[in-house]
């Protein structure tokens, strides 16, 4: 059951690489987050006495990552009205291939080789690592500030999944702090995206290349 959600998560983060449309990307991000909080709820409720910690975390995810952030992003998209990724730094096909490669790396090298003697819950952790790597690569392959922002959140999702997978969630206070951080960070980035849009009349970071040497 968990593995199914993990699969959804993984597929979502892979497909983010596939499309040019930013709105779709945001949808995929939402799907990712949704899978995430489902996993959290499942882990929390499947056990005979409910693990409230997990439930709370799941709820937070639901609020922050499934509702608030996507909403913010959508607004942002309409504000700067940029629905399609203007320019990629890595071509779609090649980025898909690289994405598959990264998944391979996570599944085939990091977990079985580097973490071999550690009993990990299913392939959650592999999925999480893959998610993080994919998120990072997503940022590399996209040029627009907005996509990079989305990439950051995607990585955070991967981190979250990893936390859940490995440790069944960090201590609650930390968890809260992290959520707060992500929220503020994302908002600040969004703010800055606005400013960039105002100042440069575009959010394509290829024009942010005046500082060099």
């Amino acid at each position, binding site marked *: 059951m968990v593995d199914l959600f993990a699969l959804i998560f993984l597929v979502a983060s892979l497909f983010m690489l596939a499309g040019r449309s930013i709105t779709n990307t945001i949808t995929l991000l939402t799907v990712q987050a949704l899978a995430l909080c489902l996993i959290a709820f499942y882990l929390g409720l499947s056990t005979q006495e409910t693990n409230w910690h997990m439930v709370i975390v799941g709820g937070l995810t639901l609020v922050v990552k499934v509702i608030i952030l996507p909403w913010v992003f959508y607004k942002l998209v309409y504000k700067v009205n940029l629905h399609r990724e203007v320019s990629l730094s890595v071509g779609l096909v090649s980025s898909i291939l690289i994405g598959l490669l990264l998944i391979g790396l996570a599944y085939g090298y990091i977990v079985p080789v580097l973490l071999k003697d550690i009993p990990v819950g299913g392939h959650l952790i592999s999925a999480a690592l893959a998610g993080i790597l994919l998120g990072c690569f997503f*940022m*590399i392959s996209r*040029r627009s500030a907005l996509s990079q922002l989305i990439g950051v959140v995607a990585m955070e999702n991967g981190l979250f999944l990893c936390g859940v997978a490995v440790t069944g969630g960090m201590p609650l206070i930390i968890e809260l702090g992290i959520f707060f951080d992500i929220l503020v960070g994302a908002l600040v980035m969004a703010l800055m995206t606005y400013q960039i849009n105002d100042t440069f009349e575009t959010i394509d*970071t*290829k024009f*942010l*290349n005046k500082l*060099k040497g």
Partner: protein
Amino acid sequence: MFASIQGNIIFIMIAIYLIGAVMPFLFKVNSKMSFITGCIPGSIAGVIGLVLGLAGLFSTDPFGVSFGHVLPGVELMIQIDRLSGFFLSTICLVTFLVSLYSWEYMKIYRQENIAWWSFYYNIFVLSMVFVVTVNNAIAFLIFWELMTLTSYLLVTFEYRSQNVRKAGFVYIVMTHLGTVFIIGAFLIMSNGFGGWGYEVLARNSISLTATEKSWVFLLALIGFGTKAGIVPLNVWLPLAHPAAPSNVSAVMSGVMIKTAIYGMIRLIIDILGPGPTWWGGLVLTLGIISAVIGVIYALMEQDLKRLLAFSSVENIGIILMGIGTSLVFYSLSMPVPAAIALAAGLFHLFNHAIFKSLLFLATGAIYYATHTRNMEELGGLIKKMPQTALLFLIGAISISAMPLFNGFASEYQIYQSLVTISSLRVSGFWSIAGILAAVALALTGTLVAACFVKAFGISFLALPRTQKSAAAREVPLSMRFSMAPLAALCLGLGIFPQVAMNSLLGVVGQLVPGSRVSGVTTYNFNLALLLLATILVLLALSRLLGTPRVRKTATWGCGIETDAAMEYSAASFSQPFRRLYRGLLQPQRKVETKSSLLPYFGYQIYFEEHVKSVLKEFLYRPLRSLTISMSKKWRCIQSGNINFYLGYVFITLIVLLVWVR
């Protein structure tokens, strides 16, 4: 008890130097008081230091004072043994006179801020004192760098001119890079647990392997060689010395570059101990190269101070010849000749300190009187400033090693060592090498003579070439007075060299174990006396016979009235040498004749000839441009594209993940 008294004296000396450094700030800048408070404490402390140095030179066991642990694992302790004593007395003797001299001399720099000058100057001297007296590697390095820094600030004192800035930059960069090698040498010897004292290093160095020892030797040679200005590394010297005010260049050339020799002796002979023979051979070779090349370039110079700077290179070469010879003997385990050779080297070091500072000060006097250092603008000064002329002449005679004067006394000793090395027949190679070295020394000697005939003859004799030198006046008394003792020492040590040699043998006896030398055959002072006597007798005779009538007329100028334009100029004096050594100097001449209406009458000739510094052309400039271009290429990694930046992070992560197992 004795030591504690000495300690107090040391404290007092340091205090006086510091007073000299800060006092001038209290007075209105460039008021008379600031000059006095800047220079007089320096000279007083110099006297005290001289006394201390002599005490150390002749006392059997070292004395000193500790300042406690100033840094983690570093105890700052002044310890004056014989070697330190010798160098301390040299430094303090010269700086004492220079400080006296500066008091008047610095007045030509009124527009600058004298307070800063005296701050830098006193700290500079103080750091030199520390460099030769501390017994701890870290402290040595700290004060070594402090010395470099302060001297850099002194060199760039007239920073308004472009050349001075350039000179200062080259100077500090070269010496700083040199320091890296010195640090390397020290660190190879130090064990990891912060053993920094000399004796600790000495203990460690016993356990070093032969290759490690050789590395230490090479690093030390390069590092100190940079400061001393041995030939491949001497580019800073002819730039920095002329850039600094003359009194400062007197100190730099007279004593500062000698601290490098101190470091070499301390590190290689005292701490590191004997090594393979090729060490000595290398030092000897470097010495020969520096001596010959240095003097050839000196001969080409028109600027008096550049000439003196190059001749410093040459003299350092001669000193190194002495040291190298002694290293050879040392490694062949012949302590006695080693001791004598080393003493000879030290003796020449001291003599060079004396006459080179004398010459620089005299040049400063010329600059004071004429505001130029270019020989082509001078001339006829022997009539305008006779006493300065006499002092300069004495310096010139001594540096070109004429009998009766100290330069000859020390070069004689070095000759003796070379003869010994070839007559002991340790091997055919060394026998021939000794003779060849002697030949090189002889060649150097003649070239130096030529060089200083030019220096004195062109700038002091014949007619003044420009208005500047025609209007010259004799410099103030205090300047002449502070030069006189140096001249007196030149003559005195020339006539009684045994005194110096024997006390130096004491110094060497401390360094080279088992070298108890009773006395050494200095060249007999009967000769000196005889020569003096003969000269005097002949003078007396020519007086007694009564001079026949003397008619004073103008010089015969082929029928034309002679004027300064017809004199032999400095450039034309050195022309034969330029032609002789064209392979090295690569002179480029450019001649244009512009004829006016008639081809035979009244046509002007434009002539210019430059010599190239081969080192600069073919070593330093390419190196520099290569570095710059490589850096320019490398900058492209900071391309300004954020995707790349993220890519760097990502790739680093992947690489590490792959690397980890």
